[in-house]
């Protein structure tokens, strides 16, 4: 089979760079996935040259409808380590086709990728039997409220015209049983080294995954992860930063060095994080140096921040 790539849709520049620069190899970890439509395929872990788990791959061959009206699909699918769809490739000599075997246009390959990226796609709600009915234009006669036009974009807007079954089948494979399979494999691989790697990855999904595993209810983590977790408070992803800040055991933020860092972070932080930082500072005995920093910048922001700083500075510790 000609494995030259016709299309290679990549999510985000990071993956693109990774895929181009690093070399990957297939690990021995492989699982069979039996899909809802009777198709069965193997999903396999891929590792980078250093031996770290990198992503999952499967080569899938699937019919997309029950009769012979549509050609079957040959496709390479890629997921991240948590089962989130990354990209697909199709072989040059087996292009995707629409009704009457018309091949996909380049735009349509792009649209397919966008559609597959959307884990909350409208397609999720539909059973295959409901498809035709919902994409024909006719409103069921006499049914007063076929007017769900305001609910959400209609299915027509989501799928590629003439390739409804292809879209449906691929979306349901990509977001189907394979996700659980991948999750269980990754769970079994979640070594301290991998979790550390996750914390530093800059990928919020991996970071949340690692936090779920590493942080206990008191916000404590094993000492080998402490610095990596604290660092997340400085993440440009304010939602992640806030999560860590809220949950983390305040004992980790008492050293002079960490407090100096928090002070600097506060000065340049987004407003939402500033408020979260001040709230956290209320839980810890503040060192002189951090107090000085706060005092110095007390009037730089707004009333609310000034008041909160005032409260921190006058608090009896």
């Amino acid at each position, binding site marked *: 089979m000609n494995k030259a790539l016709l299309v290679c849709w990549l999510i985000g520049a990071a993956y693109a760079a990774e895929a181009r620069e690093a070399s990957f190899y297939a690990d021995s970890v492989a699982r069979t996935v039996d899909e809802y439509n009777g198709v069965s395929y193997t999903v396999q872990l891929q590792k980078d040259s250093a031996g770290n788990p990198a992503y999952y791959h499967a080569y899938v061959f699937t019919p997309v409808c029950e009769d012979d009206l549509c050609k079957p699909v040959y496709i390479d699918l890629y997921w991240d380590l948590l089962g989130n769809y990354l990209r697909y490739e199709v072989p040059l000599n087996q292009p995707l086709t629409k009704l009457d075997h018309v091949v996909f246009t380049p735009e349509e390959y792009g649209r397919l990728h966008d559609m597959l990226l959307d884990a909350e796609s409208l397609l999720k709600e539909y059973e295959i039997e409901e498809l035709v009915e919902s994409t024909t234009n006719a409103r069921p006669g006499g049914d*007063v409220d076929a007017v769900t036009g305001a609910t959400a974009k209609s299915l027509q807007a989501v799928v590629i015209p003439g390739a409804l079954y292809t879209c449906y089948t691929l979306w349901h494979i990509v977001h189907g049983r394979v996700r659980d399979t991948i999750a269980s494999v990754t769970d079994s691989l979640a070594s301290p080294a991998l979790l550390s790697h996750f914390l530093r990855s800059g990928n919020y999904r991996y970071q949340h995954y690692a936090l779920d595993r590493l942080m206990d209810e008191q916000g404590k983590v094993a000492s080998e992860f402490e610095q990596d977790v604290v660092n997340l408070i400085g993440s*440009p992803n304010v939602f992640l930063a806030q999560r860590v800040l809220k949950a983390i055991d305040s004992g980790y933020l008492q050293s002079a060095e960490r407090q100096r860092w928090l002070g600097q972070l506060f000065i340049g932080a987004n407003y939402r994080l500033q408020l979260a930082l001040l709230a956290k500072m209320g839980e810890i005995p503040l060192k002189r140096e951090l107090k000085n920093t706060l005092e110095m910048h007390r009037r730089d*922001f707004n009333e609310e921040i000034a008041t909160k700083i005032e409260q921190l500075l006058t608090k009896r510790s």
Partner: protein
Amino acid sequence: MNKRLRKYVASLSLLLGLFHLGLAQSQVLIEAESFDETGGWVVDQQSFPVIHSSYLMAHGMGRPVADAVTHVRFAEKGTYHFWVRTKDWAPFPKGPGKFEVWIDGKPVGGVFGESGKVDWMWYNGGKVTIDRDSVEIRLKDLTGFNGRCDALLFTRSAAEPPQDSVGMASLRKELLNLDDTRKEAGHFDLVVVGGGIAGTCAAISAARLGLTVALIQDRPVLGGNNSSEVRVHLMGDVDKNHYPKLGRIVRELDNGDPGNGNPDAKEYGDKRKTDIIKYEKNISLFLNTHVYQVEMNGDRIAAVIGRDIRTNQETRFTGTYFSDCTGDGTIGFLAGADYRMGRESRAETGESFAPEKSDNFTLGTSNLWASLPVDSVTAFPETPWALPFSDEYHIDETKSDWQWETGFGNMNTITEAEKIRDHNLRAVYGNWSYLKNNKPEKYGKRELAWVAYIGGKRESRRLMGDHVLNQMDVQEGKMYPDATVTATWTIDLHFPQEKNSLYFPGEEFFAGTKHIRVAPYTIPYRCLYSRNVPNLFMAGRNISTTHVAFGSTRVMRTCGMMGEVVGMAASIAHKHETSPRGVYEQHLDELIGMIKD
């Protein structure tokens, strides 16, 4: 200055085209919205119920707008204390709404709009010496991000001007001489306040049946949420009517379906609507006029008073009947009509979709927006004052739809309309900034084409009539003898979208809904007049329903048909010299006959 003299000076200043210039010797008040030229600044009246004034806003979608300019004559030369009434609209911690005031070519008082304080206040701009008869004043926007200015004040006294809005309202009345310069618009058979789809249809319907009608609308265009200022498309069916005659006027106003938030303003047919009104000889149209006061005669409304949102000229309208089509139920509220806001409890209404306990929850307000492709890559600034987004959470869309919605009971649709709009802007700009700066492949060559500065409101007060339509009426398709408009929309009650709540708890700006199907049902005439203000009709989203039933009645073709019915009922009431209720009690056959015919 004694009262007489002041009046003389005021009318003289009117003659000179200087109406905005309050002339009490020692104080000169200049309303920003009354500047000779507003440049790229827009006039915003949406906070009138709170601050008793319109203001100017630099709505440039991140690009500084052209200066607003005016010329002011000073009766007295000398040194004045100079004050600017403004606010920091996004003090998180400091907002972007920065502007300067230039007097005769020089900036005065520094930069305004970045104080970190959200309240409207007078800010001291120091002392200025006026040594000429007339000076030129410019508002110079520095960012294009919604800086705003209500008024400027030059005063001889060192005392701080009144900071609260009530004190300001009386100062304004005095210095602008509002009471003495008020115009009389005359007497009308029907005074319709609010020129959304409901009000416009009510006015046309009544006028075509021979009534003299005043249609008063506080924006420069008609259509309300369906205007190019808000851009919501018309929904609700007109082809399933029990009385097919209804819906004719709605069809005339319908300019086709461009969807919600279409970047092309023309699609919404503002001109079509004003043109239709202009051909109606019985309608006097008053645009840019915000009604804020009523005069009562016993429990009846005798007159309403409106103020021009730009010139501040006041006008008084007397009428036999009034129709509240403001959406906010403002006329009813001012007249003491019974009203509800928020949700009734299940125990009260017996509705299965009502909550256990009554509360203040309402549907929210939207500021729709759209982007368009451009030829080259363009930049959009970082927006630290806006809502923060990241790869983990942002809304990956090139335009908005109805889901962009703020104010689910956490903010009041009327008294906090400005805060709600501003929260919407912080969501739109924050998200757009994220997309532009982090997803250049998709958004690099796109630009914001339009962001609404007028909030599209869904739910405010509901005025109570002799019947309060409820969920059972709607779902069981009950047909009362006074059945009028047929409605078909689902019970469409929005709530904060779950994921949005997760990332912005208490600060949601994105909605979800459940559509609960209904059989076609009819709206009784008794929902269209007030139960305790005897000459008050209502049409549109503020009619007499429960919160749950409102979820279905609120769509615009349905609202328009309510207006058609109100026009008809007003003509019958007028003919028999009776009240709206009198029509129900004594002339219902005639009303139904008219709707049927």
